[in-house]
């Protein structure tokens, strides 16, 4: 028994010694940046764009950085194991890139105070080493709503949604408000796919919506399948996360492109310089985190209107969530001229007036 204890103590000492040596050398060693993705990097959507960010980090920091990533990590208990594995393996900064990683990220962060954690799209920063970052996709969705109302002949758009979390609900509302700014009677039909990524199911959802009479499709799931279905059926659609024009050269109106690269480079550099601090970044069109793909397949006047709307949002002249706005049940939410605060948006769990769907709890 005794020998065993000694052995253990020795091992522990050795490990500690190594760890100490590791910290001392931190400046010379490459900084290790690790990424956890919810989908495969080949989804050509959400995870693909995050991976493009990783590639940009590699490109700009060269030998100063070492990267690692895990793809298709399910949200929940598995995520915690994956994050912890990364933390143990010597990552200096870990980006967890899906909403469902929020609690696991904070849990692991408590155990590894020296590792920096960056959680995308969440709002919990329970420890000083956890930062959150997100993009104001709703800005792009508002523009899409404007275009949809201009382009739709049926006056109904189909919305393929993933999970009823604030991020998605916010997107539906922004789209609705954009459309209502053109056509107060515009309708949105929502189908919840209950998945982020299943090309077959997303295609089925698109078909169902088109069969129900919508002539514009927009999606908050990650694959290019809905775009292809729209192309096949000869209606228009919006891309998601990346520019999907290749999948619908005559179909895509525009796409909200997520550009995470600049943020990732900045944050990894901050870890390297020792200037990393907890932040809560929520950037949009103005900062270049949200980029609109070229406006295509629409008349010039619609294009001009879209560009004008984009410019107004970018310059801060207009906020998509500006009153008067009523909630779905008709009660007043924002008074005339009132602009919502970020907190309400990030916790959004209600529809605005006009959305033709029951919000799942």
């Amino acid at each position, binding site marked *: 028994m005794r020998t065993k204890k000694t052995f253990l103590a020795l091992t522990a000492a050795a490990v500690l010694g190594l760890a100490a040596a590791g910290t001392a050398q931190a400046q010379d060693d490459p900084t290790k940046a690790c990424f956890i993705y919810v989908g*495969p990097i*080949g989804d050509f959507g959400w995870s693909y764009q995050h991976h493009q960010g990783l590639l940009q980090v590699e490109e700009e920091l060269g030998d100063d950085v070492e990267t690692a990533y895990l793809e298709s990590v399910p949200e929940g208990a598995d995520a915690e194991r994956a994050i912890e594995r990364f933390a143990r393996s010597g990552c200096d900064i870990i980006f967890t890139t899906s909403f469902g990683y929020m609690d696991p990220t904070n849990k692991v962060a408590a155990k590894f105070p020296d590792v920096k954690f960056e959680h995308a799209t969440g709002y919990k920063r329970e420890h000083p080493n956890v930062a959150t970052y997100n993009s104001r996709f709703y800005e792009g969705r508002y523009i899409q709503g404007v275009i949809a109302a201009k382009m739709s002949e049926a006056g109904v758009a189909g919305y393929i949604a993933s999970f009823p979390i604030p991020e998605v609900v916010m997107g539906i509302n922004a789209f609705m408000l954009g459309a209502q700014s053109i056509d107060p009677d515009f309708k949105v039909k929502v189908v*919840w796919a209950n998945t982020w990524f299943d090309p077959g199911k997303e295609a089925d959802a698109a*078909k*169902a919506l088109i069969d129900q009479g919508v002539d514009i499709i927009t999606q908050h799931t990650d694959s*290019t399948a809905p775009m292809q279905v729209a192309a096949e059926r000869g209606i228009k659609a919006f891309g998601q996360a990346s520019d999907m024009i290749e999948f619908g050269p005559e179909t895509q109106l525009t796409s909200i492109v997520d550009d995470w690269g600049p943020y990732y480079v900045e944050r990894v550099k901050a870890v390297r310089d020792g200037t990393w601090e907890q932040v809560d970044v929520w950037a949009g069109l103005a900062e270049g985190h949200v980029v609109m793909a070229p406006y295509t397949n629409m008349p010039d006047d619609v294009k001009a209107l879209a560009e004008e709307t984009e410019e107004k949002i970018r310059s801060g002249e207009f906020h998509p969530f500006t009153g008067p706005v009523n909630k779905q049940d008709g009660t007043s939410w924002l008074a005339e001229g009132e602009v919502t605060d970020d907190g309400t948006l990030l916790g959004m769990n209600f529809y605005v007036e006009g959305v033709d769907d029951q919000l*799942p709890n």
Partner: protein
Amino acid sequence: MLESILITIATAATPLLIAAMGELVVERSGVLNLGVEGMMIMGAISGFAVALTTGSVWIGVFAAILVGAAFALIFGFLTLSLVTNQVATGLALTLFGLGLSGMLGEGFVGRPGLKLGRIDIPFLSDLPFVGRLLFGQDPLFYVSLLLTAAVAYFLFATRAGLMLRAVGDNHTSAHAQGINVVAVRYLAVMFGGACAGLAGAYLSLVYTPQWVENMTAGRGWIALALVVFASWRPWRVVAGAYLFGGVTIGQLHAQAQGMAIPSQLLSSLPYLATIAVLVIISRNRRLTMMNTPASLGRPFVPER
């Protein structure tokens, strides 16, 4: 609208049907191959890649069948010749297939693929209501039904089919009768792989003509469940696949209609329906036992 809903259901059911039909033959020979998902995704990537490279969808389909069979051969060699554990080997095959396909497919991400068009028979395809449904679908839809008829005929009306079932029910007796158990199982496993490969090609060339990683999204597992659901009878697989497809599509339409049912519940309906039918079927113990291949999953080493 009903017509287009039915067509969508057929599209959703066809890949499940093809993959399940292959697995049914494998299981009838007494082998449990849990690698359907892996073989399917290999079929999806090879079909997509070959079609895009050669410019011919049919060569792609053919390549998917070959790759599926070749991939299944790995499973066959491990479990039949080296007598490894079938469950573990099948799971490994799935993981291997998902990983390998992702690697092979890296250069094909984000490229629109070729689509296998639907057939168009003059006059017949234009008939009201049934025209498009019966005479205007993609060719693989017809293949899936012909495949079912062929498997049903083979298993229950031919001598070779009887041999295959004998091997699956009692490999020792079959061996004693002079049937080459291992050879029969090799052929069955490869047939299963070929079908899974074809089902994969259906996904990447018909259903959603594109390549993205994990695009099978669990359909291989559903195919496996359908075989049990069908209690190893070919035509019941058709019923199962269309029931599953029907509920999947139906719930999307219910949502689009704005029906006030929680979408999570609707999304789980296909699975709930499958479980419900399974429970009902398995209540008749005698019938279930009669159809289950008695040697399913049991290894066989011929005495020398």
